[in-house]
């Protein structure tokens, strides 16, 4: 290696970016909290319309994919390239199934007339309209992050395959992993707030 590579510095840079993401979602959670305070009964009632089984399954998928990403970093650092590729492919699979589930979830809601600015929601009491508004904005933004995270992991998969990510140079994989874990962190709050409220 000819160039100097500041591994701690690149990690700090990635974390700084993650802080902006935390504040972005934090703002949306503040919005959720204020309206939950205002319309707690309506939130609890409408939360029951979301499918808990799909929600729980998606939670498990993201947790498992976070594990496989973390393990892929351990694998590449132990020179286990094949295992690293397998673990990254497994993470991508989990991410894809997550998105397919989300597609069916949203599709079902659209079919019963619950979508932003639908006639049903527009004439519904404010609590219902706000709950599903927040649901679409937060899960939508989160879904976008899942897509970006998967693109990064796919890039890492290619780079590992081409030996551009190795036991001695793995910053891209490490930082993509951090991003993927952040997506998981956000979902850890989204799941109970939307699917499990009493």
């Amino acid at each position, binding site marked *: 290696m000819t160039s100097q590579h500041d591994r701690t510095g690149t990690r700090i840079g990635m974390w*700084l970016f993650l802080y902006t993401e935390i504040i972005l979602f934090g703002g949306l959670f503040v919005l959720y909290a*204020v309206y939950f*305070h205002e319309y707690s009964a309506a939130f609890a009632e409408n939360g029951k319309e979301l499918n808990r089984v799909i929600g729980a399954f998606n939670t498990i998928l993201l947790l498992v994919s976070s594990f496989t990403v*973390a*393990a892929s970093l351990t694998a590449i650092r132990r020179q286990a390239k094949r295992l690293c590729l397998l673990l990254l492919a497994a993470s991508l699979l989990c991410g894809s199934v997550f998105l397919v589930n989300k597609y069916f979830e949203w599709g079902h809601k659209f079919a019963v007339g619950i979508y932003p600015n639908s006639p049903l929601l527009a004439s519904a009491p404010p609590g219902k309209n706000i709950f599903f508004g927040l649901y679409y904005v937060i899960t939508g933004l989160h879904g976008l992050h899942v897509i970006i995270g998967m693109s990064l992991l796919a890039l890492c998969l290619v780079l590992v395959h081409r030996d551009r990510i190795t036991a001695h140079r793995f910053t891209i994989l490490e930082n993509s992993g951090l991003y993927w*874990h952040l997506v998981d962190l956000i979902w850890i709050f989204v799941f109970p707030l939307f699917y499990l409220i009493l």
Partner: protein
Amino acid sequence: MDSAQQHLTSYTTLALVLAALLLLTGITIGVSYLDLGAFNVPLTLTIASAKVSLVLLFFMHLKYEGWAIKISVLVTICVLAIMIGLTFCDVAFR
């Protein structure tokens, strides 16, 4: 930092963390079926915070990071707490 010096998390540790996360997910779902009145939301948020801490500490290697990242993560969490806290000073006592 040289790659040899940087902490390497073993598969066993990662698997144990995953097991703990799945267990906590099960507990959150179980608890959501019980009516604990005012305690439901705080309990759910406590469990979520425990899960987030596990992900941060082990999957994101925060436990093995230097002070720069550790302190800045705490600062970010404090900023978030201030944001939520001050908002509720308005909303709750309006």
